[in-house]
C-alpha cells in the first residue's frame, strides 16, 4: 500500500466523527437514581428502571441535561429549547428495554464548531491549499459540529467460549447492567475533517474541553469516551463524496489516527485497482495495524424512532441556559491565550498547560507561589513534571525559583525533583542539605577555573587553535572539581574570559 502522504496528493479524505462520552462525574444514571458504576461487581447498581422491568418509568437527570447544555455552549452550539426524547428500537439484550432512549431530529445542541490549530509534522498531512496556511505550514481548520444529543449507555456483555472475549464463536454471553442507563452524550461532526491528524486533534480538543467542563473523565482506554470514524475518499478537485466506511474499536488517539490512515490508504488502493469500496463497519486491530470488516450494511437500519410517550417534552428556558452558561469555566483556548499574554509563555507550552484542567490548575497554583519565575514554572512543568509520579505545586514553585536564581542547573533540577517526588520535602532544603546550591561567588569560582586551566594544557591549546567547543569539557572539569557546587554558566563565562585574554 502507498504511504498516506502520497495517497493524499491525489485523493482527498473526507472524515466525520461520532463521539460518545459518558457523563462519569455525575452521581446517578440518566433516567433513574442508580449510582453510576465505576468498578462495581456486576449488577450492583440496578433498579427496575435500568433493568427495563415492566411498569418502570424514566425520569431524566437534571444534572445530565445541564451537562449537555454546557457541552453545547463550550462547542459553540445553538441550544435548542424545544426537543423530545425518542425511543430507538433494536432487539439486543445490552439495552434492557430493547429500545434506547435518545433524541430525535432535534438534539439539545445543534450546529456548533471547534477550530483546530494544526501545526508541525501533522500539518504536512494536508497538501492542499483550501485552508490558509502560515509560512511554517500550520493552519486553522474550522470543524462544524452537527449536533450533540443526550442518550443512555448500554449494558456490558462478556462473551464466553469464543477467542479473546470476542462475540464470534462465543457459546454464550453474560450481561451486567451496571452501565446500562449511564448518561451518554453523542457528538456528531459534519464531514469537515480532511486528515487523520485533524481527526486526532479534534478528539484531543474535545477531550480537553469536556475535561475542563468537568462532565466526564473522558477515558478512551476505559471507554468513557468512544469514537467512531467515518471516512471516504474522493479525487482531488471533485465534489462527489465516495462511499464511506465506519471505523470501530478506537481506544486511543493514536488508534484513531492510525486506523484512519490505514483506511484512507486501503480505500485508495481498492479504487486505484478499479475495485469498489463497500459501505461497511470495520474493526481496527491495533496489534496488526489494520481494519477488518465487521458488518456490511446492505440496508439502512430501521429503528422505529418515535417520541417517547413516557417523557415530557423539553422547553428549556433562557434562565436554564444562562445558569448552564455561568457554570462553563474558562476553556482551553482562552486559557492558552491568557497564559501567552499574561505570563509570556510560548504558545505551544501554554496550549499544553491549558489543555488539561488538572495540569492548568496545578500550573496556576505553582505560578502563584513563584510569581517571579512563572516562565520557569511552565518550563519545569512541560519538561520535567511529566516524568514524575506525584509532585506538589509548591515543590515545582520552589524548584522554579531556584532555577530562576541560577542556584541549580536544569540537570540538578531533574535530580532534585526525583528526590522530592512522592514526598512533601521542600526542594530548597534538599538543595541546601545536599550542598547542591551552586556558588555564584566569582572569586571562589575563579580559583577552580585557574586550577583546571593549569591542569588541562592540551585543551587550552586546542581552544587557542580554534576548537572553541572544548570549553564544554573544561566547564565539566570545573563542575567536577567543585563537586557540582559551581554555577556552570559562571564557569563558562570565567573560562572564556581567561582563554580569550
Amino acid at each position: 500500500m502507498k504511504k498516506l502522504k502520497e495517497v493524499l496528493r491525489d485523493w482527498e479524505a473526507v472524515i466525520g466523527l461520532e463521539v460518545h462520552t459518558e457523563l462519569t462525574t455525575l452521581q446517578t444514571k440518566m433516567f433513574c437514581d442508580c449510582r453510576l458504576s465505576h468498578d462495581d461487581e456486576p449488577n450492583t447498581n440496578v433498579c427496575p428502571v435500568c433493568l427495563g422491568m415492566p411498569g418502570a418509568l424514566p425520569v431524566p437527570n437534571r444534572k445530565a441535561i445541564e451537562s449537555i447544555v454546557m457541552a453545547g455552549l463550550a462547542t459553540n452550539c445553538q441550544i435548542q429549547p424545544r426537543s423530545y426524547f425518542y425511543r430507538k428500537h433494536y432487539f439486543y439484550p445490552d439495552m434492557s428495554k430493547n429500545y434506547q432512549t435518545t433524541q430525535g431530529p432535534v438534539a439539545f445542541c445543534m450546529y456548533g464548531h471547534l477550530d483546530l490549530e494544526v501545526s508541525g509534522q501533522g500539518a504536512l498531512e494536508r497538501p492542499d491549499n483550501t485552508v490558509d496556511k502560515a509560512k511554517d505550514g500550520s493552519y486553522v481548520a474550522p470543524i462544524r459540529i452537527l449536533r450533540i444529543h443526550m442518550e443512555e449507555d448500554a449494558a456490558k456483555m462478556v462473551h464466553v467460549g469464543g477467542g479473546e472475549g470476542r462475540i464470534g464463536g462465543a457459546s454464550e454471553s453474560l450481561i451486567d447492567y451496571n452501565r446500562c442507563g449511564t448518561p451518554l452524550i453523542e457528538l456528531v461532526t459534519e464531514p469537515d475533517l480532511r486528515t487523520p491528524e485533524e481527526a486526532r486533534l479534534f478528539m484531543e480538543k474535545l477531550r480537553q474541553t469536556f475535561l475542563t467542563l468537568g462532565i466526564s473523565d473522558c477515558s478512551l482506554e476505559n471507554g468513557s469516551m468512544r469514537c467512531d470514524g467515518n471516512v471516504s475518499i474522493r479525487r482531488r478537485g471533485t465534489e462527489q463524496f465516495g462511499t464511506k466506511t465506519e471505523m470501530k474499536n478506537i481506544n486511543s488517539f493514536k488508534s484513531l489516527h492510525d486506523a484512519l490512515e490505514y483506511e484512507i490508504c486501503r480505500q485508495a488502493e481498492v479504487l486505484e485497482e478499479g475495485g469498489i469500496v463497500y459501505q461497511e463497519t470495520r474493526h481496527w486491530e491495533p496489534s496488526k495495524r489494520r481494519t477488518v470488516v465487521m458488518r456490511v450494511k446492505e440496508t439502512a437500519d430501521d429503528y422505529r424512532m418515535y417520541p417517547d410517550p413516557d417523557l415530557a417534552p423539553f422547553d428549556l428556558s433562557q434562565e436554564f441556559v444562562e445558569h448552564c452558561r455561568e457554570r462553563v469555566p474558562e476553556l482551553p483556548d482562552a486559557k492558552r491565550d491568557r497564559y501567552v499574554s499574561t505570563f509570556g509563555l510560548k504558545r505551544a507550552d501554554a496550549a499544553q498547560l491549558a489543555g488539561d484542567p488538572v495540569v492548568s490548575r496545578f500550573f496556576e497554583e505553582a505560578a502563584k507561589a513563584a510569581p517571579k519565575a512563572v516562565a520557569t514554572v511552565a518550563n519545569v512543568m512541560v519538561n520535567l513534571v511529566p516524568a514524575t509520579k506525584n509532585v506538589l505545586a509548591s515543590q515545582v514553585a520552589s524548584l522554579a525559583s531556584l532555577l530562576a536564581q541560577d542556584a541549580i542547573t536544569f540537570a540538578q533540577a531533574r535530580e532534585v525533583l526525583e528526590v522530592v517526588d512522592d514526598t512533601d520535602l521542600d526542594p530548597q532544603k534538599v538543595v541546601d542539605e545536599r550542598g547542591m546550591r551552586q556558588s555564584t561567588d566569582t572569586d571562589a569560582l575563579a580559583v577552580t577555573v585557574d586550577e583546571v586551566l593549569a591542569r588541562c594544557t592540551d585543551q587550552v591549546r586546542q581552544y587557542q587553535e580554534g576548537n572553541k567547543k572544548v570549553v564544554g569539557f573544561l566547564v565539566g572539569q570545573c563542575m567536577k572539581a567543585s563537586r557540582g557546587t559551581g554555577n556552570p554558566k559562571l564557569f563558562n563565562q570565567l573560562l572564556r574570559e581567561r582563554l580569550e585574554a
Partner: protein
Amino acid sequence: MMASFEELSAVQIAAGVASGEFTATQVAQASLDAIADREQEVQAFLQVSEDLALQAAARTDELRAKGAKLGPLAGVPIAFKDNMHLVGTRTTCASRMLEDYESVFTATCVQRMLDAGATPMGKANMDEFAFGSSTETSAFHRTNNPWDTERVPGGSSGGSAAAVAAGEVALSLGSDTGGSIRQPAGFCGVVGMKPTYGAVSRYGVVAFGSSLDQVGPFGRSVADVALAMNALVAGGRDPLDSTSQEVAPNFLDGLEDSVEGMRVGIMPALMEHEALTPEMREGLVSARDALEAEGAQIVEVELPNMDSVIAAYYVIGPSEAFSNLARFDGVRYGYQEPGCATLAEQTALSRAHGFGSEAKRRQMLGAYLLASGVYDKYYYPAQQVRTLITQDYRNAFERCDAIMLPSSPTSAWRFGEVSDPTQMYASDLFTISSNIAGNGGVSVPIGLGSQSGLPIAAQLQGPAFEDRKLLRVARALERGIEAAGLFSPGTVAPDYAHRGGELA
C-alpha cells in the same frame, strides 16, 4: 351486629373500622369468605393474596388499638388489576409471558391504596396485557359477568369490575387505555372512572399505550369511587412518573351538591348512533331525563372528529404497545424458550410462545406502523388528529361542564359472540376519544336493559383536571337514576347478594 359484607360501601367500611364497629380483620375475613363462595362462578381473580390481606388488616387493627389515626380506606378490601405490581404477589398481566413473574416493587397507585389503609385481596383477571374488551384474551381463564355468567364482564379490566359487582371486594383498581375501566364497569353495573391522564401515577403499572393508559377505581357507588380517587392522588404528583401532575384530594368535597345550572352536553348524532342497541338508546334518554330532573341543563355539543377516533387510537395504541412490549425477550424475566442455540431464536420463540394471539397482533401492527416511511403516513398524522380531537373537546367544554355519551354501544355479550378483532375494536367507539385527548371519564349504571335485563351505563366526560366536577355530575346522575327507580348505588349482582361473607 350482623351484616352482609357486600351491603357495605367502602365509605361505610372505613367508617366502621375507624369507629370500632368491626375490625379490619373481620372485614378481610368476610371478603375472603365472599371470594371463596363466589370465585368458582365468577373467576374474577388470578391470585387471592390471603396472607397479605390478613397482615394488612391486622396492621390496621393494631394502629387503631394504639389510637393512631386511620387512613381514609382503613380496612376496605380492594382488588388490583394484574398489571399492577404488588410485592408479595405475581404480576402476570394474564399472560404466559409473565406467568411466574414475582413483583420486585410495588406500583405507586397500589402503594397509595395501602397507605390509605386498604386491604389487598388479590390480583384481578384481565385481557392479556390489557389487549381486549372482554377479558377473553386472558391466558389463564375467563371471567364471568356476575349478572349472567354466560356473558363477558367486558375488558380489559374485567376481573376488577366483576369482583366489585359480585360483592367480593368493595373497591378495585383497573387501567383504561381505550375504555378498559368504563366499558367493564358498564357491563357489570358498577361505577368505573378513568381520571384525567397524569392525575394518577402509572409507575409500576405494566404499560400498554403509555400516552393513553390511566389507572382508576371501580366501586359500587360514585361516593366510593371519589373516596378511592382521594387516596390515589393524596400523595401529590409521583416523582417516579414524568407525566404525573399534582391533583388535590378533594373528590368528596361538594360531591352531593346540586348540579342546578350546570350544563351537560350531548351529541344528538351519537345518542342515535347506528351501533347503539335500542335499549341503550332508551337508557340514554332516561339518563338525560334524570340529569334534567336533578337540575342540569342539557345542551347540544359537537366533537366533529369523533369518526376518526378509532383510526387514531389503533395507530397510537399498537405503536406504543409494540414499543412497550419489546422488553419481553425472556432474558431478564418472563417466559424463556428452552434449548435455543442462538439468542435470536430464543427471543423469537420466547415471544411467539409467551404472548397470546392478540398481543402478537397488536405488536405486529405497531411494528409496521412505526417503520420508516410508514410512520409519516399513520403515526405522525394520528398525533396531529389527536390535536384536533383535543381542540374539539376544548371547544365543546366551552359550552358545557360535562358531556354524556354511552360507555359502550351494547350491554355485555356472550362469550365468543364477538370474535373478529377489528369488530371488537369498534366496541371502544365511545370511550377512546378521552384516552386520546387525556380528559377524564366515568361510567355510571343507569338501569337494566329493557330487552337484555343486563346493566346498561352512561358515560360522563369532563375537561382535563376537572375530575372533581365530573364526579359531582356523575353523582347527580346516580341520584337521578335512583330517584327514577332505575338502579340503586351499592347494587351487587342479584345472584351474589346476601350469599356468604357475613360480617360478624
